[in-house]
């Protein structure tokens, strides 16, 4: 190496370093770390939390549309004021007509597990106490206590609106917004379409899996 070449290398390195340094922005801002004082129990938020209410008429679909173009619903009491249900139909599985969509596939529950006989107008808990339609979640909580507790804490169930209810309201789902009361298992569904694969070698060839491997 000739004399002077070392200096040249250093000069170039310094110039490049200075140029690279000009690209960098200022130092990152520090992360927020202070813990917020917990809200006093029961302290009010500025905005309410609404519960998404289920449909108002307890009954069955009539199979025709009403004046507003929505499926007309017939309250249970229209018939069951006079008609006593047969015990063989307690799961409402093989009866058609108005009951076509009623079929109960929910453990060993029958109509009378939740609906109050004889008119099936309201609901009742297992100990016989009546439950208003608005509080129908209490029926579910009789068996599904862990889910009900998680729901109360906000850890279970969908919602829309604001996480910060000092900024705006929030609407929370009711049990039966997601779970059909008679067939509570969420039905199988076709997933939303996939993005185009990044790792597909040739069109039509099976894509690799395990994107997160390693």
């Amino acid at each position, binding site marked *: 190496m000739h004399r002077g070449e070392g200096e040249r290398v250093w000069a170039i390195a310094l110039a490049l370093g200075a140029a690279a340094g000009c690209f960098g922005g200022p130092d990152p801002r520090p992360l*927020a*770390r202070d*813990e917020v004082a917990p*809200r006093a129990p029961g302290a009010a938020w500025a905005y309410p939390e609404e519960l998404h209410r289920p449909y108002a008429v307890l009954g069955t679909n009539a199979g025709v549309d009403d004046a507003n173009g929505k499926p007309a619903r017939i309250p249970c009491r229209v018939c069951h004021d006079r008609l006593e249900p047969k015990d063989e139909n307690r799961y409402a599985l093989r009866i058609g007509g108005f009951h076509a969509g009623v079929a109960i596939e929910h453990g060993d529950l029958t109509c009378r597990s939740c609906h109050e006989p004889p008119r099936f107008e309201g609901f009742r808990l297992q100990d016989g106490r009546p439950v208003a339609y608005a509080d129908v979640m209490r029926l579910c909580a009789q068996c599904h206590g862990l889910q009900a507790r998680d729901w109360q804490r906000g850890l279970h169930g969908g919602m829309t609106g*604001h996480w910060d209810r000092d900024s*705006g309201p929030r609407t929370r789902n009711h049990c039966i917004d997601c779970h059909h009361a008679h067939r509570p298992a969420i039905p199988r569904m076709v997933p939303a379409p996939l993005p185009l694969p990044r790792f597909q070698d040739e069109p039509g060839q099976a894509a690799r899996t395990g*994107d997160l491997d390693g």
Partner: protein
Amino acid sequence: MDERTRPLRRRTLLKAAAGAVGVAAAGRAFSPLLGPWDSLTLDEVLQRHYSELTPEDKERVFRRLEEKARQDYGVAVTISDPQPRPRTKFGYALNLSLCIGCRQCAQACHRENNHDRRTRNTYITVMEIGKGTLDLSRANSRYDHPVPLPDKTYMPVQCQQCDRPPCTAVCPVRATWKEPDGIVVVDYDWCIGCRYCEAACPYHARRFNWAKPEVPAAEVNPDQAYLSNRIRPAGTMEKCTFCLHRVRMGRLPACLEACPAGARVFGNLLDPGSEVRQVIATKRVYVLKEGLGTVPSFYYFFTV
């Protein structure tokens, strides 16, 4: 004979020729850098890093971007710049017992964040994993059959908003950084598209804009933020920001609102009463690839 007075030697000539070839090759190699300058205005070239923009700069830049969106996509958009809220650090929790793998979250992300319609891009990858294993090396992110299968667990993966993010550390121009509320953001106009961050992220949470996004005017989400869901230029990196433009206004992220299983919980990690803190306090949570020391703000948990 003196070295200086000798005529040109063969070896010297060869060296010079090789040098000339080298210079020409280097010039050719860097020539693509000259391309983009044709389409850039002086204002765009001189635009500074996000953190150095004065309020007047921001006003000018945001209006210019809005005008560009109007010209390119034929739609009136609003580009805002919501700031981190004081004493707020965002956290996300996801209940793997409830997730059914329907990818509605990924679809909502696609729409909310103005992703390219042609590639159906999204920030969320849903993994299908054998139940009881959580073996990611055998996970399938490209399943396309009705879900859920009874012997599978479904695990959506998006940016984990790490407290020690490897992606920001490798950025050679500091175009990506962690905000005080925990969200890792990208200044799309400062990014040089080197994709180091994509390589550094152990969660495959970053995406590269290979082409100018195609979004029909009717589908453009006009509620946009500079650091979040504005339509990104081609050749830049992009990533999940927990819907920064929504959550800094107190709203819930789009993926949470879309979840039909109610598996997602979002909130302020610094508020001991928040729901995401309730998850951490009462459930056995785990974070993805904990051993890497990235310290995610995204928690997975199971319930009965």
